[in-house]
């Protein structure tokens, strides 16, 4: 997704003046560049690297780690050029406040759209190369030899002529005083040693012994805990609450109104806060949305399927005329529900407000947005605010929003000087989401007498994320993100050549707030396109793989991943008895992806997904081992959605409140996933999201092969399909 918030640069430049040198950074040297020091006093060698005297290499990471492995992948990129000892590498987050003070020295902080590596690969590698050149120059200066006569391997610098050696830790102080070079050349990819290697993650050790502190685990001296309830009807307001009923309950310190739609109880412990909140009588002003039912939303989207007006996302030839003249016409309507993100760690933020400073500790996918939210909610200038990023217990797009940060600050502002940890209950998480958008699609195809696809019209009706979150990024009212995977070109291009093609979107925005949800619009678009292609193949008695291949000759990268999964699953050989296969391909986030599934399904609806083959071509594959984990992990998220993932509206609010009604797949339902990481080089595609979208259509197409039934509404649980 290209569409995650990018901070307005101007606001940071303005804020910079207010910060001045207020950071805990020391500066020395009367002449030459200032040496900037990390908190422990070790010198920075360029902005991306700190070298400690004990040879530890600290690599700065601006993006947020939420499980996707970006800390490790980005560190590999810096270390590749730095030529440091990988076993000595550790990472740290520069704070968003430091970013403001240093004019975004580390670039974009936002972590979404599978962009961590594909949009920062160049400047982070340059950061590593810059530091290497400074360190070598420092050694050369000491030895009074030309830097060109020195080389480095694993943090050890050697002078060729004399054989003298030194290490990064020994020359770091001197290197920090050298003006960073501006003429920095990056390695040829063929010389990479660390990029492309499946090294272990850097952040595992503390995750197996309970030591890892997430935002929810944070403790600060004097801290109090808050539990919150916002109006369950979106758009509704808080009318009143009866504080007297809970004021005497154990541990309760204060009951506070939060903005105009929520109330929070602050107590000594979170359990006390939550217990009191549950006992607090609250009256909501639900407003008109309180009368909206699921059927109203279905009707709203259905109307859009045949509406006259729609935004055109892709147009080739004249699809409507070609459909009218086609020998055979096939039509099918699909629908995709709202889904909750449900990261395992419920949303939380800790805020400490005083009259002249506001600090926030939180897991966030966008540190800069969290800082902006802190400034706005506190009423303080951004230079008097700071955000300390914590590791995320899952994000999936939900932590790209800063609503929970805003709330924490709004509460803390009512209790100056006391740190307040706001933790949402799981129920709050599921009912106050920014949900996977709901859409429907009417797919219409025209085929000639030989069964060739001559026309395709995909009419999408439904929700736009950008119109809800970033209306400024609409293009004359159109949300380009809606067409992910259907686009004529770019990072989410369609992989088929259809002589007459029309993809259009009747925007219908119900009151339930949508958001970016791992994979975003490729999730449903891949189902619409890839299940429908399968329908066309079967309707014209053609092999689903061969039918696709005929349309893909001008899309060699799409075709390559499709062929790869077909080969590995053994498409041309019969599957084991009782086992059926399905296949799908798509493109998103600059990467080409495909999947093939083997399933069995008995006549009582017991589904077993035995095996899935996945192929991903992200161009440059930085860490194949982590890519495999992202692929098989995303299949759990995507297949959970297919099997169980739906939230529905009743009286304007979300009905599902916890995992008992919003289920998530377990290990017993997990197919064996065989990942093919087939980086073809030459470009940088994303990894965290693209492959998720082909899991569902591959399984659905296999279900059709097994049963002859097409399921076009989801999740499958509504069709009484359950896992065996």
């Amino acid at each position, binding site marked *: 997704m290209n569409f995650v918030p990018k901070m307005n640069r101007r606001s940071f430049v303005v804020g910079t003046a207010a910060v001045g040198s207020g950071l805990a950074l020391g500066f020395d040297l009367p002449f030459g560049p200032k040496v900037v020091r990390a908190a422990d006093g070790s010198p920075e060698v360029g902005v991306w690297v700190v070298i400690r005297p004990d040879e530890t290499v600290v690599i700065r990471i601006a993006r947020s780690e939420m499980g996707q492995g970006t800390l490790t992948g980005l560190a590999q990129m810096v270390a590749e050029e730095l030529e440091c000892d990988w076993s000595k590498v550790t990472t740290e987050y520069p704070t968003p406040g430091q970013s403001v003070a240093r004019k975004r020295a580390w670039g974009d902080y936002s972590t979404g759209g599978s962009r961590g590596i594909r949009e920062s690969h160049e400047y982070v590698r340059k950061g590593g190369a810059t530091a290497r050149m400074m360190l070598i120059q420092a050694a050369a200066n000491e030895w009074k030899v030309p830097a060109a006569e020195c080389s480095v391997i694993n943090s050890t610098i050697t002078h060729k002529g004399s054989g003298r050696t030194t290490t990064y830790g020994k020359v770091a102080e001197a290197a920090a005083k050298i003006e960073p070079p501006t003429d920095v050349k990056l390695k040829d990819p063929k010389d990479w040693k660390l990029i492309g290697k499946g090294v272990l993650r850097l952040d*595992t050790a503390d995750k*197996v012994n309970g*030591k890892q502190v997430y935002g929810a685990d944070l403790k600060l001296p004097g801290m109090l805990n808050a539990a919150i309830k916002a109006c369950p009807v979106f758009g509704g307001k808080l009318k009143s609450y009866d504080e007297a009923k809970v004021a005497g309950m154990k541990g309760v310190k204060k009951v506070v109104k939060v903005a105009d739609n929520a109330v929070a109880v602050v107590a000594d412990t979170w359990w006390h806060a939550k217990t009191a909140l549950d006992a607090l009588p609250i009256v909501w002003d639900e407003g008109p949305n309180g009368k909206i039912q699921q059927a109203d939303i279905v009707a709203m989207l259905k109307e859009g399927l045949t509406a006259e007006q729609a935004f055109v996302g892709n147009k080739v030839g004249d699809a409507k005329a070609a459909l009218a003249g086609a020998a055979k016409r096939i039509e099918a309507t699909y629908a995709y529900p709202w889904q909750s993100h449900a990261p395992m760690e419920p949303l939380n933020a800790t805020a400490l407000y005083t009259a002249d400073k506001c600090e926030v500790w939180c897991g966030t996918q966008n540190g800069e947005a969290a800082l902006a939210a802190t400034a706005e909610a506190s009423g303080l200038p951004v230079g008097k605010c700071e955000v300390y990023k914590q590791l995320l217990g899952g994000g999936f797009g939900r932590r790209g929003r800063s609503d929970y940060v805003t709330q924490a600050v709004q509460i803390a502002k009512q209790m100056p000087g006391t740190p307040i940890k706001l933790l949402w209950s*799981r129920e709050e998480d599921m009912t106050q989401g920014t949900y996977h958008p709901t859409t429907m699609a009417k797919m219409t195809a025209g085929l000639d007498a030989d069964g060739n696809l001559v026309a395709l019209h995909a009419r999408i009706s439904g929700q736009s994320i950008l119109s809800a979150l970033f209306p400024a990024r609409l293009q004359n009212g159109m949300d380009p993100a809606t067409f992910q995977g259907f686009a004529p070109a770019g990072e989410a291009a369609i992989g088929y050549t259809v002589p007459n093609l029309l993809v259009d979107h009747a925007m219908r925005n119900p009151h339930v707030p949508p958001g970016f949800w791992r994979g975003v619009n490729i999730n449903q678009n891949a189902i619409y396109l890839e299940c429908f292609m399968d329908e066309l193949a079967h309707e014209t008695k053609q092999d689903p793989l061969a039918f696709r291949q005929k349309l893909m000759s001008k899309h060699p990268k799409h075709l390559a991943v499709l062929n790869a999964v077909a080969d590995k699953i053994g498409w041309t050989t019969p599957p084991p008895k009782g086992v059926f296969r399905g296949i799908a391909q798509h493109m998103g986030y600059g990467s080409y992806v495909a999947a093939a599934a083997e399933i069995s399904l008995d006549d009582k609806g017991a589904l077993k997904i035995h095996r899935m083959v996945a192929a991903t071509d992200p161009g440059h594959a930085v860490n194949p081992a982590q890519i495999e984990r992202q692929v098989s*992990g995303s299949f759990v998220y995507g297949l959970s959605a297919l099997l169980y993932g739906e939230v529905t509206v009743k009286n304007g609010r979300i009905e599902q409140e916890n995992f008992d009604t919003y289920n998530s797949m377990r290990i017993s339902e997990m197919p*064996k996933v065989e990942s093919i990481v087939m980086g073809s080089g030459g470009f940088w595609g994303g990894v965290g999201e693209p492959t998720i979208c082909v899991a569902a259509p591959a399984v659905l197409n296999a279900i059709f092969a097994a049963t002859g039934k097409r399921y076009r509404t989801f999740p499958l649980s509504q069709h009484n399909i359950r896992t065996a």
Partner: protein
Amino acid sequence: MVKLTVNGISHDVDVEPDTPLLWVLREQVGLTGTKYGCGVAQCGACTVHVDGVATRSCSMQVSDAAGKQITTVEGLAVNGAMTKVQQAWIANDVPQCGYCQSGMIMAVTALLKEKAKPTDAEIDAAITNICRCGTFQQVRAAIHAAANA
């Protein structure tokens, strides 16, 4: 006042007897490795051992844990020596976000005590923890690795 024994250490905690064990561990005892994920015994992020039995601590009243031996993820390693399960988790690079892994490791540790070499079917039956990152493929590999270590 409730008397709890956590990782071999005795604690007197001043809480209401119906407080969930999870919140006493996190807020009174101060061990935050045990996680809150759902509060209704669905996700397993709060799994601890109570007298050796894998238990979802969000749904056990602290009064029912009094006098019993409670082990949390912080209590697995002995004198800093990681268990086979923890070692297998690191070698197989299992965690992604890691938030569910404390509970996952506690559930697996209990399983391996009962069945030293579980089959895939036995793993499927015993391990019902939710992991939204979807680490199941590595979890299964690491369970087999720990069993064979």
